[in-house]
């Protein structure tokens, strides 16, 4: 049986090439993702080893339970006093103990004050500024040029950053912190680790006392320990644990690196899942092509199977033979996919390293990737082959004797009923997943969507068949006989044609869905910015807005008022929620907030709650307790918000300080004085324009707060739209693979049906149909299927996208924007793709030898 299956594969390699390729493409995405994230992870674990390799033991704050260790580079609060560092140094076996402290700030480029503000909206690469211990093992720095730091007011930079920022030895280097700009003299350059692999960040060291000053913190956030020769590090770590304060821990450098790698892997896992989702979509689309291929092969071999049955082969054996054939294809395809995936990862990491430097370890093929690839490839192929295999096993011996193998005349009734049922059930399950607070909603949404799409595919045969019939006159008018024959061919095998179109439908559906969502998002953004009364938004590329910068802005002539907004997290009832901190006195002057009562009435010790919290059963007048870190405060619920997405809780700044200590401001909205500043539109000669006024404010900030930038709502809107377009672009690119597979599917189906229609084409040629006409016939067939799949996909995609947008009404979406431009682009692209997909089949069809074609057994 296995030999028979193998022989069949070998006998007809062409029809299987495209099938295998379709599976391979999907598999390659899965494999590439895993190779890629594996390399990324090993690249970072090398970096972590670099960071911690000098320190034998590290003393730091013990991780809290809710584990926010997402960003390993963030500056942590100081917890070790200099005396405690001394104590650690005094432990037996410790050679040196150095307190470490990171300053939250940015090293500015030379001449920063002259540079325009416009190109700085995106901010520069991050800076890592540390205190200089002076021991290369702890600093992880090798002096390259100049000297180390000897006194206050000096700085060393890493060897790449110094020239990149435009500094030479002896220059004054500017550092911006929340308190303003300070300058230091550049006395040396250093190399970090072995290769200065900093992933694009700037590394700077300043004198210990300067670091404490800038950080506004007398303590150290961690202590790095170098052990004396021959110490048992685990023993030493536990010895040190004896002298350190509560809430801190001692861990060996090796363990720390491993821990960080593990944390990173947790994050990368999400990247994996995201990318694998697209691989699965591609495989799902590929499954349609496999179904089609096997279906056609079974039809073509009906007589062969009938003969086999006549000579005593059981249906079961035939079924097994076809499934074995599927296994052979799956094996070949998965192997091909793994190779392609590895090459893809290689190409991509090379591309990334052009921009971001060498952040990858060596690219290896993890065992996981191999297992997943073979597993998924085989599963998809086998599942797709099951229906055709069952179909083949039911072929009666009598069919061997029948003249033609046209099976397309079976009514579509059963198919329609099953299709409609699946469509409805799928839609129901998706709805449940979206609205009915289940444990893992995405599973419901995913399974429901797949069911819905399969249902739509089944139903589409019913639509496609009469549609092709209806199009006959038009096709006849445009393409004469070629067009009519094409329409007939589509109509003849409605199942096959609609499966082919369905593969394309899925890809386009997802594209249309994303496009609908992003276009609607853009509308929301536009409305959001047009509803603001602020003339400018001030933000800092460092993250939080410095309080001093707000004072500077308010001191500029022509500024009427500012209103700042802070965001943070706090726990309510054991769950973390977002908290917005507002200035009630000015908030309603800058944004039309929708709350009951107005935001003006928000007082200290009060909170407004959004619909999410209302759903928890909290009501106006209730007392609630919010917890952040060690603080907890009890507030009275005094109002409700109309929409979600603007913070679960609203509090004012006084309450915010009680809860959070210092409130970190994300942005400050600025309103200009109407009597001084005219609208840009009016552009009265006498008055200052908004743009001019914004420049004035920007200039005032340049001296002390060069990292604070003002943007007008229009600019921000543009920026937001650019990001949304980028999102659409990235997702489209990822869906590209599914679309490529779908087009391969169109080509594959046509190729197989050309084989099937060999005699017919020979006959047409014999009675005088030109080669070019044959070509045109196949092309029209392909275009009709491609455009049909695209239109179906767009209808479904826009519908699902609209449903999604409507379900997000709570987040401020108040209408669907249909992405007409994209829809037109997709349709035109589909027609072109149809022409391209037809090239190979049409070429083969037009090149058929007439005599051989007529003699071929059909």
């Amino acid at each position, binding site marked *: 049986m296995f030999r028979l299956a193998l022989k069949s594969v070998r006998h007809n390699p062409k029809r299987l090439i495209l099938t295998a390729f379709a599976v391979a493409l999907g598999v390659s995405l899965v494999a590439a993702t895993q190779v890629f994230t594996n390399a990324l992870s090993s690249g970072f674990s090398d970096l972590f080893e670099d960071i911690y390799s000098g320190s034998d033991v590290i003393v730091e704050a013990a991780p809290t339970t809710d584990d926010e260790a997402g960003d390993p580079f963030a500056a942590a609060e100081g917890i070790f006093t200099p005396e405690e560092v001394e104590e650690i140094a005094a432990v037996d076996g410790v050679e040196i103990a150095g307190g470490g402290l990171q300053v939250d700030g940015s090293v500015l480029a030379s001449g920063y004050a002259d540079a325009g503000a416009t190109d700085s909206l995106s901010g520069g690469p991050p800076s890592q500024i540390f205190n200089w211990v002076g021991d290369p093992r702890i600093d992880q720095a090798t002096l390259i040029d100049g000297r180390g730091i000897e006194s206050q007011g000096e700085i060393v930079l890493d060897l790449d950053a110094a020239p990149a920022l435009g500094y030479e030895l002896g220059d004054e280097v500017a550092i911006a912190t929340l308190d303003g700009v300070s300058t230091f003299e550049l006395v040396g350059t250093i190399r970090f680790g072995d290769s200065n692999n900093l992933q694009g960040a700037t590394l700077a060291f300043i004198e210990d006392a300067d670091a404490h000053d800038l950080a506004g913190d007398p303590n150290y956030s961690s202590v790095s320990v170098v052990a004396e020769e021959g110490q048992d590090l685990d023993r030493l770590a536990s010895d040190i644990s004896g002298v350190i304060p509560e809430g801190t821990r001692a861990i060996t450098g090796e363990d720390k690196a491993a821990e960080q790698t593990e944390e990173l892997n947790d994050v990368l896992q999400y990247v994996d899942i995201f990318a694998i989702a697209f691989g699965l979509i591609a495989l799902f689309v590929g499954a349609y092509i496999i179904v089609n291929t096997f279906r056609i092969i079974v039809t073509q071999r009906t007589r062969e199977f009938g003969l086999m049955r006549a000579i005593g082969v059981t249906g079961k054996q035939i079924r097994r033979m076809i499934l074995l054939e599927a296994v052979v294809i799956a094996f070949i395809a998965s192997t091909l996919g793994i190779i392609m995936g590895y090459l893809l990862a290689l190409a991509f990491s090379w591309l990334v390293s052009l921009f971001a430097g060498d952040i990858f370890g060596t690219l290896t093929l993890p065992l996981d990737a191999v297992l997943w690839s073979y597993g998924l490839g085989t599963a998809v192929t086998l599942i797709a082959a099951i229906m055709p295999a069952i179909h083949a096993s039911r072929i009666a011996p009598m069919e061997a004797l029948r003249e*033609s193998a*046209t099976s397309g005349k079976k009514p579509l009734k059963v198919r329609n009923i099953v299709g409609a049922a699946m469509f409805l059930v799928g839609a129901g399950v998706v709805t449940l997943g979206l609205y009915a607070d289940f444990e893992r909603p995405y599973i419901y949404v995913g399974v429901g969507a797949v069911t819905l799409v399969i249902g739509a595919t089944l139903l589409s045969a019913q639509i496609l068949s009469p549609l092709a019939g209806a199009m006959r006159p038009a096709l006849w008018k445009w393409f*004469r*006989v070629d067009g*009519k*024959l094409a329409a*007939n*061919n589509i*109509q*003849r095998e409605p199942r096959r044609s609609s499966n082919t179109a369905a593969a394309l439908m899925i890809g386009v559906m997802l594209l249309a869905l994303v496009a609908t969502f992003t276009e609607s998002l853009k509308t929301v953004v536009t409305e959001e910015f047009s509803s603001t009364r602020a003339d400018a938004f001030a933000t800092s590329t460092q993250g939080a807005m410095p309080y001093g910068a707000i004072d500077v802005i308010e001191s500029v002539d022509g500024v009427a008022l500012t209103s700042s907004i802070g965001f943070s997290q706090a726990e309510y009832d054991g769950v973390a929620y977002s908290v917005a901190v507002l200035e009630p006195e000015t908030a309603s002057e800058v944004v039309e907030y929708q709350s009951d009562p107005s935001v003006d009435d928000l007082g200290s010790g009060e909170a407004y709650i959004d619909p999410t919290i209302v759903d928890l059963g909290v009501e106006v007048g209730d007392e609630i307790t919010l917890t952040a870190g060690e603080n907890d405060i009890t507030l009275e619920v005094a109002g409700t918000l109309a929409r979600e997405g603007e913070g679960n809780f609203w509090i004012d700044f006084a309450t915010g300080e009680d809860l959070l200590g210092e409130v970190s401001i994300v942005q400050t909205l600025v309103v200009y004085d109407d009597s001084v500043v005219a609208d840009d539109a009016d552009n009265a000669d006498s008055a200052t324009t908004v743009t001019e006024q914004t420049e004035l404010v920007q200039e005032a900030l340049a001296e002390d707060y060069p990292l604070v930038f003002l943007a007008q709502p229009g600019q921000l809107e543009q920026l937001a739209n650019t990001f949304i377009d980028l999102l659409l672009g990235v997702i489209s690119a990822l869906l590209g693979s599914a679309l490529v597979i779908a087009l391969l599917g169109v080509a594959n189906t046509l190729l197989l049906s050309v084989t099937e229609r060999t*005699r*017919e084409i020979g*006959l*047409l*040629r*014999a*009675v*005088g*149909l*030109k*080669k070019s*006409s044959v070509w045109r016939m196949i092309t029209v067939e392909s275009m009709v299927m491609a455009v049909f799949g695209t239109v179906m996909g767009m209808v479904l995609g826009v519908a699902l996208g609209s449903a999604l947008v409507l379900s997000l009404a709570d987040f401020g979406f108040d209408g669907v924007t249909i992405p007409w431009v994209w829809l037109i682009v997709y349709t035109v692209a589909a027609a072109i793709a149809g022409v391209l997909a037809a090239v190979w089949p049409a070429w083969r069809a037009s090149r058929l030898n*007439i*005599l051989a074609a*007529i003699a071929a057994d*059909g």
Partner: protein
Amino acid sequence: MTTTTVSAPAATMRDGYKDYGSGEAAVRALDGINVSMARGEFTAIMGPSGSGKSTLLHTLAGLDNLSAGSSTIADTVITDLSEAQITEVRRKYIGFVFQSFNLIPSLSAKENITLPLDISGTKVDPAWFDEIIGILGLKDRLTHLPAELSGGQQQRVAVARALVARPEIIFADEPSGNLDSKSGSELLAFMQRAVKEFGQTIVMVTHDPTAASYADRILFLEDGKIVDEMREPTADRVLDRMKQMGH
């Protein structure tokens, strides 16, 4: 309406050779054929299996190339023409009837009949169309798909298709080969009528002496050579002749 009879033949072949394969496996299917098909004549080609009958038909019709020699259709030497030009010639001057699978399964009987005209974009002459289907008895079968027609009806549709464009010459390779004797003789009678009444030229390959007897003349082929020719044949004479050839 009849085709005006001109002295020039509808199709000719001069010193036609056809070799398949090379070296030891080489087969000479046609071995110096000289033949001329006069207009308005019904010619049958007979001979043992493998004697080259189909090959002769195909090379005459421009479906296959000669290895050496030349052939003409309607005074055009087709041996030197390009593939596209030969297609053009086929479309304009030639009709075909094959042994089986003559029809495009997705087209109705009527659409199959008018296919050659549709391809060349010519209008159907309704009077001529009605006359043909009347003779062939296809009137109430026109909307049917080939799968819904009997074998004999299918072959009649194929003959109608060959006739509808009024080609210079019709080539038929065992048109009645798959039919029972009654439908076979009906079909052949129609073909004979087309020759007699409309001056159609037909060349037909057959194994069957009775079928051959409908023709005006018979060419006997053996090992790629024309070994004999018979005019005004009857089934008995053909049978005798074939027995001589060792059938």
